[in-house]
Each structure stands twice: as structure tokens, then as C-alpha cells.
């Protein structure tokens, strides 16, 4: 797999440099990882398209039961959308990262993406009851099977694995109300100046549960990604995601003290083959990330994902030029998300102006840009998403 990709990259670079015809989507995507491509690339995570917008016969109950239904839906989206790369061919919500097999209870309803309703870690004793899996089962196995089959059917596409890191997995096993409290009590205990204070803290809570949970989820995170590899998936381009370890959930200081060390262990245990993204809300913090050898690479480094937005759902425009200049400096792409609510609410003229502006900036700065759509929600349509991608073709010549 890695050898195939290296070959594809080599061919794509030759084709691009010698002007031997138009780049395919995957080729453009790969060229952009090395040098300036012919135009900004476009990307769509199929899972972010509401299934009923493609065909009402697809619902989340069916998609949680059938590998083939996921692949069929993916095929329909590939046919109707002209993005350079269409990936993430499954619709299982957060069940895709493995918690359902570890005791988290998900509600699966026809019209709503599966969501967690109960968590297995209620007290410290529950941690030991969760065993590190020896093999993939249930929904996790289903995700691997879908990915593997999609890779077989679409060899010219790219299926990057995105799995939860220790913090996000802990949120799914402990719950998003308790884990931040566990962290606070642990932090207060660890940073207490004297034993009397530590004793007092123990009367109000358990400072040991946080590191115990994170130790477990670190091992789980490593094992789940190992299982992906054992099930035939490539780790190339794979990312360990802890999107809830970012602002405004926690400070950068807390992240580096209480989350990052666990993530580094995952990264090292996997031979540094996966990237460890850390989302930040500004170009200034992106610069900080770039100083860190672990955080400096990967999907989440140059993205507007959690940058401040206008009420309409557009990233504040003043953030784009600094990000493009940084992307150019570091020879990477600025991943510009068109947020779902903007796609839904904006008129074609508004979308046109937005895409024209960001593509214009990218061509002016001569930095690689990747335009993607965060979600295609009810009220929007695949055609509207496609309209955005066509606008990139229209405005995005370098």
C-alpha cells in the first residue's frame, strides 16, 4: 500500500512538472503534499452527508447493520460529487472509533446519527472491567471491513483512518460531564502546595480516577489502531484525534500537562506512523504547534476547523491570509472548511463570493489550499455541495 502510494506520488509529480495532462483528484491531493498543485484541491468526508439527502431509503438503522448499505451510499455520493477525494465511507457516528464494544451505550435511530446515552465508567472500579480487545468486533470490525472493501473498490482513492486518541475515547467511556471534573480534581491535587490541601481534595473527589482512565484509553487507542493495521488497513495519513481536548473545553496549558503526554505515548507506540492533531482557534497558536515535533504534521495543523466564525458560519476572513502564508512557509495545505450551516443558509451568490475570496487569496499567496465541506445537513443538498467544488475549479487556478 505505502509503495503504491509512493509510486502514485512519483507519477503525479512527473505528470505535474512535465504538464503531461490534467491531474486526477488523488494526484492533485498528493502533489499538494509536496509542492504547489495546479489548483486548490477539494475533499469531502462522505460520512458528513446526511444519508436521506442522497436517497431516503438510507437511514442510520440500516447503515448501522449493513456493510453493503454503507458502500452503496458511498458509491452514490462519489457519483454525484466532483470532489478530488471522497473518503470516510461509513455512517456510524462515534461508534466508528470502538466505544460501543467497550460498554458505551449508543442509541441508534433512523433519522439521527448514533449517539452515546450511557457510559461504562461510573466509578474507578469500572476501569478494570474494560479489557483491551484482542481482535476487532462489532461496529469497529464493521468500520474496518467497510474501509477495506472501499479501498479495494476504489484503489485510486484515499481512505485515511481517523481514530480517537486517549482524551476523546475517555469522553466516550466516562461521559462529557464527568471527565472534565475528573481532570480538574486531578490537576488541583497534583498542583496542591501541601499535604493538608491534598487531603482536603480527597474528601471532595477522587484525584486518581483521571490518570487511571487516561492510562486505559492510551492503551485502547494504541490497540485500536493496531487492530486497524491487523485488519489490512493502511496507516498512511492516519490521524489520532482528540478534538475535545481543545479550547474552549480546556486550556493549552492543561492540554500539554494532562493530555499531550498520553498522546505522545500513542504516537511513539505506533512507530510515529500516525499524526497527532491538536486543533487551535488562531494562526498564532498554529505557529506554537509548529514548534512541537509531534503536533507539527498532519491533517489538523492548518485548518480553520475551530477558528472563530461570523454568525453566518464563515471563518473570520482576517484569519485566512496568515494561515495561507504559514501553509506556504511549511509546504502544507490550508484546509478550509465551509461550515454546514453556511452551506445550508447561504445563497449561491454568497457561496460564490466566499469561494472566490479564499481561492483568490490562495492563488495570490501561492499556497496550497484544500476546500472541504464540514457537513451537508438537512436544508442543504449534495448539489449545493457540488456547487462549492465547481466554484473551486472556476476560481482556483494557480
Amino acid at each position, binding site marked *: 500500500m505505502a509503495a503504491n502510494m509512493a509510486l502514485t506520488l512519483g507519477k503525479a509529480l512527473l505528470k505535474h512538472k512535465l504538464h503531461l495532462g490534467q491531474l486526477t483528484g488523488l494526484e492533485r491531493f498528493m502533489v499538494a503534499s509536496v509542492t504547489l498543485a495546479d489548483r486548490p484541491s477539494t475533499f469531502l468526508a462522505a460520512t458528513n452527508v446526511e444519508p436521506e439527502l442522497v436517497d431516503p431509503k438510507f437511514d442510520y438503522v440500516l447503515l448501522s447493520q449493513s456493510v453493503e448499505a454503507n458502500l452503496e451510499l458511498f458509491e452514490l455520493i462519489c457519483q454525484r460529487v466532483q470532489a478530488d477525494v471522497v473518503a470516510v465511507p461509513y455512517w456510524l457516528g462515534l461508534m466508528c472509533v470502538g466505544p460501543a464494544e467497550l460498554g458505551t451505550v449508543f442509541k441508534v435511530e433512523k433519522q439521527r446519527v448514533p449517539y*452515546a446515552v450511557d457510559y461504562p465508567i461510573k466509578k474507578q472500579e469500572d476501569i478494570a472491567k474494560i479489557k483491551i480487545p484482542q481482535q476487532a468486533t462489532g461496529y469497529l470490525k464493521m468500520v474496518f471491513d467497510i474501509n477495506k472493501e472501499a479501498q479495494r473498490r476504489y484503489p485510486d482513492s484515499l481512505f485515511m483512518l481517523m481514530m480517537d486518541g486517549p482524551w476523546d475515547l475517555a469522553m466516550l467511556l466516562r461521559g462529557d460531564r464527568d471527565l*472534565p471534573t475528573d481532570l*480538574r480534581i486531578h490537576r488541583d491535587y497534583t498542583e496542591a502546595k501541601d499535604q493538608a490541601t491534598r487531603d482536603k*481534595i480527597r474528601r471532595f473527589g477522587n484525584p486518581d480516577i483521571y490518570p487511571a482512565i487516561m492510562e486505559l484509553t492510551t492503551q485502547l487507542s494504541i490497540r485500536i489502531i493496531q487492530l486497524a493495521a491487523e485488519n489490512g488497513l493502511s496507516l498512511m495519513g492516519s490521524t489520532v484525534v482528540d478534538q475535545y481536548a481543545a479550547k474552549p473545553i480546556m486550556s493549552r496549558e*492543561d492540554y500539554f500537562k494532562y493530555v499531550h503526554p498520553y498522546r505522545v505515548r500513542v504516537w511513539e507506540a505506533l512507530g510515529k506512523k500516525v499524526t497527532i492533531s491538536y486543533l487551535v482557534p488562531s494562526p498564532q497558536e498554529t505557529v506554537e504547534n509548529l514548534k512541537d515535533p509531534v503536533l507539527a504534521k498532519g491533517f489538523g495543523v492548518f485548518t480553520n476547523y475551530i477558528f472563530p466564525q461570523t454568525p453566518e*458560519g464563515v471563518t473570520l476572513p482576517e484569519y485566512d491570509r496568515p494561515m495561507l502564508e504559514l501553509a506556504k512557509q511549511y509546504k502544507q495545505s490550508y484546509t478550509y472548511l465551509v461550515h454546514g450551516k453556511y452551506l445550508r443558509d447561504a445563497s449561491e451568490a454568497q457561496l460564490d463570493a466566499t469561494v472566490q475570496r479564499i481561492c483568490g487569496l490562495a492563488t495570490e499567496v501561492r499556497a496550497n489550499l484544500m476546500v472541504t465541506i464540514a457537513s451537508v*445537513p438537512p*436544508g442543504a443538498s449534495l448539489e449545493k455541495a457540488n456547487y462549492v467544488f465547481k466554484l473551486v475549479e472556476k476560481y482556483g487556478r494557480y
Partner: protein
Amino acid sequence: MNTAIAAGVAEGNVYDMEDMVTSALAAGENPKDLLQAMMAGLNTCGARFESGEYFLPELMGAGEAFNTGMKVLAPELAPGDRTSQGTVVLGTVRGDVHDIGKNLVGFMLESAGFTVVNLGVDVSAEAYAQAVRDHKPQVLGMSGLLTTTMLGMEDVIEELKRQGLRDKVKVIIGGSPVSKKYAEQIGADGYGNDAAQAVRLVRSLL
């Protein structure tokens, strides 16, 4: 004002709050003044969150410190000591279990002196309407994080109309998929882009 108690709440000192309030009461401090100090602490914490200095664990800590102090203080307060800027009912709409954003809004409103009735998550249209009957709030706030569940906000407004309650309460909505356009479309009175805006929005409606 008891600045130590205000700082204790602001900094989420859950562990000393009970002792601090007990000592202050024993020293003869006025319970109403202590309540004001605790409210000032919440307010400081809210302001620090808004300015990007504090984050979720700090907010939760301040809320917990406030509640710990109130367990000691509440029996000592006279009727009328606890003034409220108004009552706000909050909940996450049916089918959606995202709690964090709504709780942040609740914290910011409480820190500004509002009484908040938090209905939790996965709240049905009927439960919202019942809460309006029970608590008679000035404002009803709905949160949703999913583009699919936010559609339930319209059902809640319809239910309020059906039960003759719509003109008795202002309705505000929030959550990342929600927009001003959607608020106007479903007949909500206001929309907030983030938790920090919630207080300004609620004040503007009263």
C-alpha cells in the same frame, strides 16, 4: 464584600468553600452579603471564560464551589435576599445529548444573576411546555448541536403555540448548526452564537 469568598468561587475552590462560608457566618457576616460575594465570584469566572482565560473545568469548578457554599448559606438567607434578574429555562432538544454548550450558557446566566432551570438533554417539546407552565420563565432557551436535531426546535415552538404559551415566554436558540436565519424562520425571538452572547441576548429581550 468578602473578597476571599468571591475569589474562592471564581477560582473554583470547592474544597475550602464550606469552611469559608461557615467561618464568615460564625464571625457575624450578613448572609446576603456573602451571597453577593459568591455571585461576584461566579461573575468573575464568567468574565474570565469570555476573555479566554478560563475553560470548561474552571467553570464547572466555580459552579461546584458556589453550590457547596450555598449548602451552608441557603438556610441562613431571609426571603428576599435572593434576588433574581429573571428565570430562564434551558434544555437540549429531543434526540440530542450534547450538554456542554447548554451548561456553559446556564453558567453564564447564573453568574449574571438569572435563575436557571436546566432541563438537561433530549428534552421533548411537551417537557419544554410543561416547564414553561411550572416555572413561568421570562426566557426559554433551546440548544442543539446536530443539524438534524435542531429541527426539533420548531416543534417546541409549535407546541408552545398549541398550548397557548408562546406569547408568555421569549424563545432563544443556540448551538453550532443554528443561525440567525433559522431563528427567524422558526419564529424564535433570538439566537446566540456562543455562550458569552447568551447573557446579552437574554438581557436584550427582557
